[in-house]
C-alpha cells in the first residue's frame, strides 16, 4: 500500500499542510506539496471537478448495465429454470432496489477511489477509505465472536433457570446478579492489562506484532462475551418461566416427553425471536463498545484497523487548526451504516421465522 506523507483532505491533489520545497533553480518555496500516488492522475479532464463529475457519470452508466442484467434475470419470464435456487427472488422489487444501490455505490467508490482519496488520508498518509473498510472486519468480528461466546451461556442458563426452577434458578440468578454488579469497564480494563503484562513478560512467545494484536482482539471478545450474557439470560429466564405454564408445554408433558425434548421442541423455537432481537441489539452495542474501549485505550491493539482507533486518533485531529474532520466522519458513517443495517436485517429475519407473520412463499 502506497502511503502519502501526511494528511490530505478528500478529493484533494495536495497535502493539507504547507512544506518547504526546493525548486529547480535552488530557491526554496513554502507551499502545499502535490500528492504522490492519487489526486494528480486524472483520467479524463485536467480540472478536478470536471473529472470527478465525468467519472461518476461514467460509473453510474456502467452500473446501469449490470442493473439491466439483473432486471432481465429476475423480472423476465422463462429466464430462470424451474428448479433454480434463485426462483424465490423472482419479481422481488426490494431485491432489485437494494442490489442496484449497492452496485452503484461500489462502482462509484471503485472508479473514484483509484484516482482520488475519497475520504482523504490520515496522519501517516494512509487512505482513510481503505482503513474504514478494513475496520469493518474488526467490528463484525468483535460483534459476532462475542455474541457466539455469550449465546450458549445466555440460552442454556436462561432456559434452565426458567424451566427447571428451584435451586437451579436461585444459583443462576445469584451468578448473574453478581456478575452484573461488577463494573464491566473495570473488569475489561484489568483483563486487558493482565494480558499486556503477560505479553511483555514473555516476548518470545509472540513472533510478531500481528500475533499480539490478534491475541488481544480475541481476549477482548472473550471478556466482553463473559460479561454481556446476563441481559439476555434474564429475558430468557422470564420467557421460559412463562412458557412452562403454557398449555402446549403441559400437553407435551402429558405425552411423556422428557424435559430436554420439551426444551428443544417447544421452548427454544418459541424464545428464538427474543434471541434474534437481543443478539442484534447486542451486536450493535458491541460494535459501539469497541469504539468506546479503544478510545480509553483498553480496546483492540493500536496497530489493528478499527473505528475505535480512528476515533481515538481523531481526538488530536479535532484539536489542531485547521481541523481534520474526515477520519472521525468516516468512522462515524461506517459504524452508523453497519449498526443500522444489522437492526434492519434482524427485523426481517425474525419475521421470516415467525409462521404468523410470514407471507405465503408457495
Amino acid at each position, binding site marked *: 500500500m502506497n502511503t502519502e506523507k501526511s494528511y490530505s483532505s478528500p478529493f484533494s491533489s495536495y497535502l493539507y499542510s504547507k512544506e518547504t520545497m526546493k525548486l529547480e533553480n535552488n530557491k526554496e518555496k513554502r507551499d502545499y506539496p502535490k500528492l504522490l500516488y492519487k489526486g494528480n492522475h486524472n483520467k479524463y479532464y485536467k480540472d478536478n471537478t470536471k473529472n470527478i463529475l465525468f467519472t461518476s457519470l461514467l460509473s453510474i452508466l456502467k452500473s446501469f448495465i449490470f442493473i439491466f442484467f439483473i432486471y432481465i434475470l429476475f423480472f423476465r419470464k422463462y429466464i430462470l429454470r424451474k428448479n433454480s435456487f434463485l426462483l424465490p427472488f423472482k419479481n422481488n422489487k426490494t431485491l432489485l432496489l437494494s442490489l442496484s444501490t449497492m452496485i452503484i455505490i461500489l462502482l462509484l467508490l471503485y472508479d473514484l477511489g483509484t484516482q482520488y482519496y475519497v475520504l482523504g488520508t490520515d496522519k501517516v498518509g494512509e487512505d482513510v477509505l481503505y482503513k474504514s473498510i478494513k475496520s469493518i472486519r474488526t467490528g463484525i468480528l468483535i460483534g459476532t465472536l462475542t455474541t457466539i461466546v455469550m449465546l450458549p451461556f445466555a440460552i442454556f442458563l436462561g432456559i434452565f433457570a426458567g424451566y427447571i426452577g428451584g435451586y437451579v434458578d436461585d444459583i443462576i440468578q445469584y451468578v448473574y446478579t453478581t456478575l452484573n454488579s461488577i463494573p464491566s469497564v473495570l473488569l475489561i480494563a484489568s483483563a486487558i492489562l493482565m494480558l499486556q503484562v503477560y505479553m511483555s513478560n514473555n516476548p518470545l512467545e509472540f513472533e510478531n506484532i500481528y500475533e499480539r494484536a490478534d491475541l488481544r482482539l480475541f481476549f477482548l471478545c472473550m471478556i466482553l462475551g463473559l460479561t454481556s450474557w446476563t441481559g439476555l439470560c434474564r429475558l430468557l429466564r422470564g420467557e421460559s418461566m412463562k412458557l412452562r405454564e403454557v398449555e402446549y408445554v403441559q400437553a407435551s408433558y402429558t*405425552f411423556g416427553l422428557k424435559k430436554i425434548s420439551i426444551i428443544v421442541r417447544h421452548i427454544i423455537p418459541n424464545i428464538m425471536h427474543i434471541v434474534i432481537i437481543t443478539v442484534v441489539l447486542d451486536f450493535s452495542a458491541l460494535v459501539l463498545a469497541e469504539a468506546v474501549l479503544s478510545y480509553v485505550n483498553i480496546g483492540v491493539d493500536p496497530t489493528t484497523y478499527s473505528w475505535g482507533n480512528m476515533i481515538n486518533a481523531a481526538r488530536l485531529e479535532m484539536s489542531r487548526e485547521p481541523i481534520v474532520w474526515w477520519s472521525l466522519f468516516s468512522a462515524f458513517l461506517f459504524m452508523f451504516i453497519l449498526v443500522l443495517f444489522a437492526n434492519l436485517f434482524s427485523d426481517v429475519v425474525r419475521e421470516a421465522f415467525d409462521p404468523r407473520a410470514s407471507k405465503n412463499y408457495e
Partner: protein
Amino acid sequence: MNNLLQVKNLYLRIKSNKKSEVLRNINFEIKKSEVVSLIGESGSGKSLTALSIIRLLEKSCKIVNGEIKFLDKDLLQIEEKEMRKIRKKDISMIFQEPMRSLNPVMSIRDQLLESYDDYKDKNIDSKIIQNLISVGINDANRVINLYPHQLSGGMKQRVMIAMAISCKPKLLIADEPTTSLDVTIQKQVLDLLLELKEKLNMAILFITHDLAVASQISDRIIVMKNGTIIENNQSKEFFIKPKDEYSKSLLESSFYSRKLKENISLPNENILNIKNLRVYFKEKNTMFSRNESYIKAVDDVSFSMKPGSIHSIVGESGSGKTTIAKAIMGLTHITSGHIEILNQDIAALNKSNMRNFRKFYQMIFQDPFSSLNPRMRVGNIIKEGLCFLKPQLNKTETNNLVEDVIKSVGLDVDSLYKYPHEFSGGQRQRIAIARVLVLEPKLLVCDEPTSSLDVTVQKQVLDLLMDIQNRVQISYLFISHDIKLISNISDTISVMYKGKIVESGKTSDIINNTKNNYTKNLLKSVPQIKN
C-alpha cells in the same frame, strides 16, 4: 320524544380491510330506562357497536356512514370536548375484565375520585362511601383504602359499577360485565344492575354472548351476526318464538343435551379411582425463610368413575377442580393420596413404565389458542404424542393414523400442513382433540373444553366428543364451572367447593333433589332462559 339513543344506518370500516364494512346498516334505538341486550358470537361486531356509541373506537376504525342520536345530539358530529362531557355525565361504560379495568397502583378511593366533578369537596369521602354502599359493598369504610388486588373479582366489578353510576348516567353500556365471574357472583351483579336501573332510572345496553343472562335482564333483544342486526325483538317474544333461523340455532345451542343412556349396566370395576387426594401448595417462601403454611388446593378428595361414562367435576374458580385434573395428569405434585387408573396406582409406576402408561389417559385443555405450539405444523403437533408414546409404529403407519384422525374430527387432510394460527377457535379445539384421540386413550380429562368457544361452536365440539364416545369405548372426566351444561351431558357429578367435594352422585339426583346448601345455591344462581 321517547328515545334516549337512536342509531341510524351505521356503517363502520376497518382501514386495513377495504373490501367490506365490519358493521353494516345498524339501526336500533334505546328508550328511557330500557334494558337492551346485544347478542352475538365473537366477531359479530357487538363490541364495536358499543364503542362507536361512546366514541372509543381505535384509530384504525372509521365510521363511514350513519348517525348516533343521543337526546337530539348527533354523537358523531360533536366536538371531542363536548363528547367528554357526555361521557362524564350521561353515558358510562363497564368493561368485561374487572382485573384489568382498574389501575393496580391506585387505591379504590383514588379511582372513584376520578369520576367526580367536585373532587375537591371535603365531604367527598362520604359521597364515595355512600356510592359503594349503593352497589352492595357494606364495609365501604374499609374498602376505599384498599387496592384492587386485595379485592375479589365480584367486588372489583362492583367498584367498576360504582364508578360508572357515580355520575348518575342516563345510559349505561355494559360490555360482557359478568363473563369472567362465577355464576353465584354473576347473579349478584345482574341483580345489582337491575336494582340500580330502577333506582336511577337509567337505560342499559347490555352486551353478552349468553342468551340466558340476556333473558334475565333485558326488555329487548338484538341479535347480531357478521356485522349486521339479524333480529330486533321484544324479549318475551324472542324466547318463545324467534323470527330468524340463526336466532333459533343460537337458542337451540344453549339448550345442549345428550340422550342419557338409561339403565345401562355399567361394569363393576372403575376406570379411575381417586382416594383421599390432597394437593397442598406451600405459600411463597424465599431462600432463607422456611414458611410452613399451605394453601389447600385439593383437600381429601375421593371419587371414582366407571368405564364408558361421563363424570363431571363442577365448581367455581378456585375450588380446586383444575388442580385435580393436573394431579391426574402428573402436572402437579401430590401431597398425599392415591390415583388409580385402570386399577394401576400411577404413583407406583417408575419413569419408563409411566411413559408407556400415559397413552391410556390424556387431557384436553381449556384454551385452544395456547394449547397448540404456534411454531409447529398441525401434522407434527398430532404426531408428537405418537412418536413418544407409540415408538413401535413406522412412518407410514403413523401418517395413516394421523390422516384418519384428522378426518374423524371433521377437518381436511390439507390442514395437516398448516399452522395453528390459520384455524378458528373451534377448529383448533378439534385439532387438540385429534392430538389426544390418535393415542386411543381410555380416559380423557377435559378441562373446560368449551368455555372459551362461542355457543354454536361449543355445540359442535360437544357433538364431536359425544360422537367419539359412541364410536370408541372412552370415558370423559369433564371439568367445568357450567353446571347447566354439565347436567345435560354427564352421568355422574361431583360438586367441589374450596378444595373439597361437597356432593357427589348421579346427575338426576343432584340436579333434582340436592341436599347440600352450596349446590342449591349454585343451581339457583344459574341463569335460566325465562319463557
